[in-house]
């Protein structure tokens, strides 16, 4: 186990920033901590780096308890949100900073800086001032400054926040490649679900200081552990209802627009008959047809909005009770128009059910 957090608590005055956080990351894995601002994700990263001490709990790196070690005694390195490049040093000196402190001799420093600069394609910027390079280049310098130390764990605190969308998407591909190449453990903090999906081996969704779900991308996307995760990652249609029947592998829910069936493995908690629940279905899991098919989970609806945006076409449909539901499909030629009466259906395996008390 490369990184292990045990029962981490952190308080700022009366505010609980982190509540009983437990995490495990294997060597070579890229964990993305995903949460909104104020969720505690940056605090968590700072606790791993040693810039912040937890009020309770332990931080273990490679099995060693480092909870009370200062940042300069930990095998971690952090890429800061605003990069924190040293303005009085040029690109080379910024990257060499950590090596010089570790008293490497000059030749060794030069070799290692050049090596990492080449990997990040900034080798012709080495004698430039950090004030006179572009945002994307500054990004790479910050990354190089940490990577050059070969840290066991690289921590990244929303490092791509300042870049525009196109550049960010390029960086995702490159970072992922880089991470496989250097093969150390990365912990990446972001509020952007797309970024999380693009980068992660594992995702930890955090909200109000608590880990909501820790799992692979597929687990988190296909089977969100809570309503928060379900609404935070990707899009999800929600229907409120009441459980009418629990039988074997099948759970039936009565909603204002009709009966919905779900398979038990997607049901979170143990709802009994009569319990209030929320049903969630991903927009791309819903089929749309002109005539009612004989599937279970078939509802009638009316097309109210069609929006084509490149790869995806999004339909917004109105259900009989006036509520709306979203459907996404990659096929363009479906021949529906605004106002058409249609039927929608989905499979019971694609239904997530959450108890709402």
């Amino acid at each position: 186990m490369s990184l292990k957090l045990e029962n981490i608590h952190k308080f700022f005055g009366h505010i609980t920033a982190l509540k009983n956080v437990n995490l495990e990351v294997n060597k070579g894995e890229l964990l993305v901590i995903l949460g909104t601002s104020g969720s505690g994700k940056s605090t968590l990263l700072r606790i791993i780096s040693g810039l912040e001490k937890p009020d309770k709990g332990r931080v273990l790196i490679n099995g060693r308890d480092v909870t009370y070690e200062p940042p300069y005694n930990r095998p971690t390195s952090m890429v800061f949100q605003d990069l924190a490049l040293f303005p009085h040093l040029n690109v080379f000196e910024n990257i060499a900073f950590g090596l010089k402190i570790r008293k490497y001799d000059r030749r060794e420093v030069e070799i290692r800086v050049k090596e990492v600069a080449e990997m990040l394609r900034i080798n012709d910027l080495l004698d430039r001032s950090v004030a006179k390079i572009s945002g994307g280049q500054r990004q790479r310098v910050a990354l190089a400054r940490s990577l050059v130390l070969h840290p066991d764990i690289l921590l990244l605190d929303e490092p791509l926040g300042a870049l525009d969308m196109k550049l960010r998407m390029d960086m995702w591909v490159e970072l992922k490649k880089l991470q496989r190449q250097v093969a150390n453990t990365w912990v990446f903090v972001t509020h952007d679900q797309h970024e999380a999906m693009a980068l992660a081996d594992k995702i930890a969704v955090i909200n109000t200081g608590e880990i909501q779900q820790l799992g692979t991308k597929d687990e988190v996307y296909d089977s969100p552990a809570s309503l928060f995760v379900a609404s935070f990652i990707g899009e999800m249609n929600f229907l409120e209802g009441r459980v009418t029947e629990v039988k074997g592998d099948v759970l039936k829910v009565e909603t204002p627009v009709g009966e919905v069936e779900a398979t038990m493995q997607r049901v979170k908690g143990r709802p009994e008959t009569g319990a209030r629940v929320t049903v969630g279905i991903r927009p791309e899991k819903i089929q749309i047809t002109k005539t009612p098919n004989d599937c279970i989970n078939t509802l009638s609806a009316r097309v109210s909005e069609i929006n084509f945006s490149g790869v995806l076409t999004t339909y917004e449909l109105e259900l009989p009770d006036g509520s709306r539901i979203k459907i996404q499909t990659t096929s363009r030629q479906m021949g529906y128009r605004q106002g058409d009466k249609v039927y929608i259906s989905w499979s019971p395996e694609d239904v997530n059910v959450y108890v709402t008390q």
Partner: protein
Amino acid sequence: MKRRLSIYHIYAIPTTAYLLLFFYIPIITIIVYSFWIGGPFYEFKPGFTLENYVRFLTSRVTQNVMIVTNVVAFLSFLATLLVAYPIAYFLARVLKGDTGLRIILLMLIPLEMNYLIRIFAWRNILGEQGFINNLLLTLGIIDEPVRIFFHSMYAVIIVIVHNALPYAVFPLYITLRSIPQNLYQAAMDLGSNRVSTFFRVTLPLSMPGIAVAFLFIYVPMLGEFAIPALVGGKTFLLGNLITRQYLDVGNWPYASAATISLLIITLIASFLVFKYMGVRRLYE
């Protein structure tokens, strides 16, 4: 191209008049005097000669005075810096919020007191009947009053440190405040402990503040005459040389040449400091 005069140019008149009256006219007068034909006891004549400059720049005596002045100025600057830096560091990095700024304002209050009175006040501390001598006598460390504290170069430096302290603390406070916190954190994260973070990050990034303090302390010292005259004993600096030439010897052309030479030296020094010590960064 013709520049049209507008009504708004009126606003420039007070400033222009002020600069003209109190800066340009006196300086031009001194420049003109510096080329006159010199002589003691106010016996100087209009004319044009470089003799005054040549004499000032080549004379052994003035060269020695120049060296001593620079040494005293530099030692004063260093001593002030050594006292001011920890204070500024404490105010900027240890205290939270605006507390540091309020304390700096308190430090400025003694500056309201007359300059000469402030210098004389040191007599009560450093003088033969002063606090330090009395204390040492009472404790039996010395048998009779010692004079090294007063009428000496040390006294000059002590008084300058006292006078110049706010001028050093303030720019240092400003620069230390302007260093982003996360640079310290980045340094620590990259393996640097508190001591090496100070020398590799804090100190280099506070260079602009040090440069401004240098300008505030070193440059005025080159022309300082009151402090050495009052507490310096035999300490004789450039300022004293110039005042003596103006007031006692009465050789205005020579004194003027010395003044202009000094002005040029300080201009060059200031320019170098601004250019190479990143002072401009303070204002960006």
